[in-house]
C-alpha cells in the first residue's frame, strides 16, 4: 500500500488550548478518506496544518513520503496538495475563465510570464474550457464570480482545486451552503473525481460520508478518536455516543 499523506504526532496549541493533539494519520493513495467529528473537534485546524496555513508546534507531515511540515503553502501545492475551502475563497470580479486560466497557468508554471498574452496561451485555454464544461460552468465562463449563483460558485471552488491536478485533494465540506436542488450536482462531481486522486473529505453530512468514503477517521477534542472502515465506524458505539448521538 502506498501512503499518499501522513501525519506523525502532530500537535498544535493556541495558548493553553490544544487544537490538534498528537494526531497520527495515514491516508492510502487513491483513498476516499473521510474526517469526521463534532464541531470544535479540530478538523479545520488539521486541514490548515496540512496545507501550511498554520505551523505545527511539533510533529511531521509527509506527502508521498516527503516531509513538508516546514514548507510554505504554495510549495506544498507544487508538490501535489490541493484543497477547497469550507467558505468559498474565490477571486471576486474574476470570471470563471480568468480563475481557471490562473489555476492551470500556475500549474504549468506560466505565472511568471509577463510578455505572453493570455489569449495566446492556447493549451491552457483549451484545458480551462474543458474543465469549465465538465463543471457545468461553460455557459457562465465570462460572468464575474460574484454574480454567479451560490451553487455555481461552489462548483468553481472545487474546479479550482482540481485544476491543480493534485495527488491529494482535501475537500472541506464541499456541499456546505449549497441549496438542496443544486446539491446533487456538486456531489456527483465529487464522486466523479479520478480514482488515482487521493481525497480527504471533511463532512457533516453522514449520508454523504457513508456513501462516499471507504475509510473514516473520527476526531474528538483535537485527538484521533477512532479509525476504520465505514462498517466499523458506523457500528462503533463510542463514536455514536460522541458524534452520531449528538446529531440525533
Amino acid at each position: 500500500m502506498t501512503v499518499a499523506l501522513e501525519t506523525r504526532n502532530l500537535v498544535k496549541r493556541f495558548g493553553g488550548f490544544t487544537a490538534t493533539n498528537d494526531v497520527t494519520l495515514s491516508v492510502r493513495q487513491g483513498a476516499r478518506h473521510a474526517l469526521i467529528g463534532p464541531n470544535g473537534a479540530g478538523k479545520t485546524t488539521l486541514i490548515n496544518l496540512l496545507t501550511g496555513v498554520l505551523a505545527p508546534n511539533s510533529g511531521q507531515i509527509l506527502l508521498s513520503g516527503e516531509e513538508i511540515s516546514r514548507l510554505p503553502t504554495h510549495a506544498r501545492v507544487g508538490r501535489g496538495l490541493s484543497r477547497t475551502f469550507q467558505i468559498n475563497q474565490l477571486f471576486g470580479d474574476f470570471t470563471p475563465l480568468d480563475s481557471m486560466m490562473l489555476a492551470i497557468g500556475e500549474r504549468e508554471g506560466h505565472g511568471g510570464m509577463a510578455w505572453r498574452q493570455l489569449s495566446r496561451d492556447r493549451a491552457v485555454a483549451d484545458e480551462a474550457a474543458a474543465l469549465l464544461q465538465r463543471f457545468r460552468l461553460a455557459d457562465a465562463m465570462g460572468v464575474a464570480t460574484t454574480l454567479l449563483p451560490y451553487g455555481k460558485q461552489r462548483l468553481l471552488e472545487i474546479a479550482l482545486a482540481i485544476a491543480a491536478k493534485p495527488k491529494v485533494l482535501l475537500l472541506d465540506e464541499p456541499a456546505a451552503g449549497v441549496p438542496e436542488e443544486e446539491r446533487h450536482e456538486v456531489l456527483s462531481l465529487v464522486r466523479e473525481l479520478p480514482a488515482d486522486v487521493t481525497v480527504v473529505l471533511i463532512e457533516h453530512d453522514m449520508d454523504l460520508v457513508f456513501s462516499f468514503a471507504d475509510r473514516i477517521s473520527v476526531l474528538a477534542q483535537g485527538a484521533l478518536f477512532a479509525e476504520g472502515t465505514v462498517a466499523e465506524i458506523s457500528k462503533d458505539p463510542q463514536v455514536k455516543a460522541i458524534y452520531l448521538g449528538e446529531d440525533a
Partner: protein
Amino acid sequence: MSDKPLSASETAIGLLKRAGRWQIWEIALWLIAIAMIFVLPSKMLILTEITILGLFAVSLDLILGYAGIVSLGHTAFFGLGAYVAGIFARDYFSEPVTGLLVAGVVSGLFGFATSFLVLRGSDLTRLMTTFGVAMLLAELANQAAWLTGGADGLSGVTITPILGLFEFDLWGRNGYIYALVVLMVLTFIARRIVNSPYGLSLKAIKRNPVRAAMLGISPTRRIVAVYTIAAAYAGIAGALLAQTTSFVSPDVLAFHRSADVLLVLVIGGTGYLYGGIFGAIIFTVLRDWLSVITPQYWMFWIGLILIIIVMVGPERITRWQAFLPGSARAERLKARKAAEDVR
C-alpha cells in the same frame, strides 16, 4: 457572429482576446494626445506636466491597483529618477534617452532593494516603511549638497538633443513629444504585462491571497517584480521631469508628491492603467484652475476634494468610465445581464 454554436474553447479564446483588445477610447485618447501637438501649441508645458504625472500615476497603479500595496512614499522613486537623470546629464553624458534608461535602471534597482519592505506586515507597516524610505531619501538629497545642490536644487543641467537629433525647444514642443512617446511606450508595455499570465496572478494575489497561495502562487517574487517595474517607471517619470525642465528641486521627494499621485490615481480610478492618465489630466487642469482663483490656498481645495472623494466613495466618482464604450465597467454591466440569463 456566425450562427453555428461555438465550442467552449472557441468561446474562451474569444473572451480572452476581447479582454486584451484595444478599445476605441484608448485609441482616441492617444490620437487626441498626439493632436494636441498641433491644436494647443501654446500649452506644451502643461501638457508635458500632465504626461509626466500620468506616467508617475500609472506606475503607482501597477502596485496599488494590481498588487494592492498602499504606498505613502512612491515619490522616492520619482525623486531618485529625477536626481539620477539630472546628475547623469550634468556630470557624465547629456543625451536624454540614455539618461532616461540610467534613471530607470537605478530606480528599478532601488525598488528591488526596498521591495522586501512591502512584502510583509499590514497596510500600516507598508505605509510607514514606504513613507520612511521617501523621507530618508529626501533627507539624503538635502544633506548631500555637494552632489544634489541641497535645498537650492540641482541646477546646471544641460540636455543635448534627443538621440542627437531633436533639440528641446523653448516652447516645449519636442519636450512634450518626447514625454508622450515615453508614456505611450511604457503604457503599452504595462498593458501587455497586466494582460499576461503574470498580470493575472498579480490581480489574484490582490483579490484573495489565501486562495492564490493555494493555487501554488508564491506572492513574494511576483510582488518584488511588479514593485521593481513600478519603481523603474516612477524613476523614468522623474527623469522626464528633470530633463524637460533642466532642473531638479528637492521638492521631487516631498511628501505632498506621494499624496498627490495617490489623489491622481483615485480620481482616475485604480486597476485599469488609464486611471493614472485620466486622473493626471483632471488633477492638473483642476489645480491650474484653482491656483488661478486662490493662488496660495489651492491645497485647501485639493484636501476638500480628497475628503469628498472618500466620503462619496471612489467607485461612484469613477463611474463615469462606464460611459467609455467597451470599457471594463461597461463589460461588467454586460456581464451582469449575462449572469441573469444564466440564473
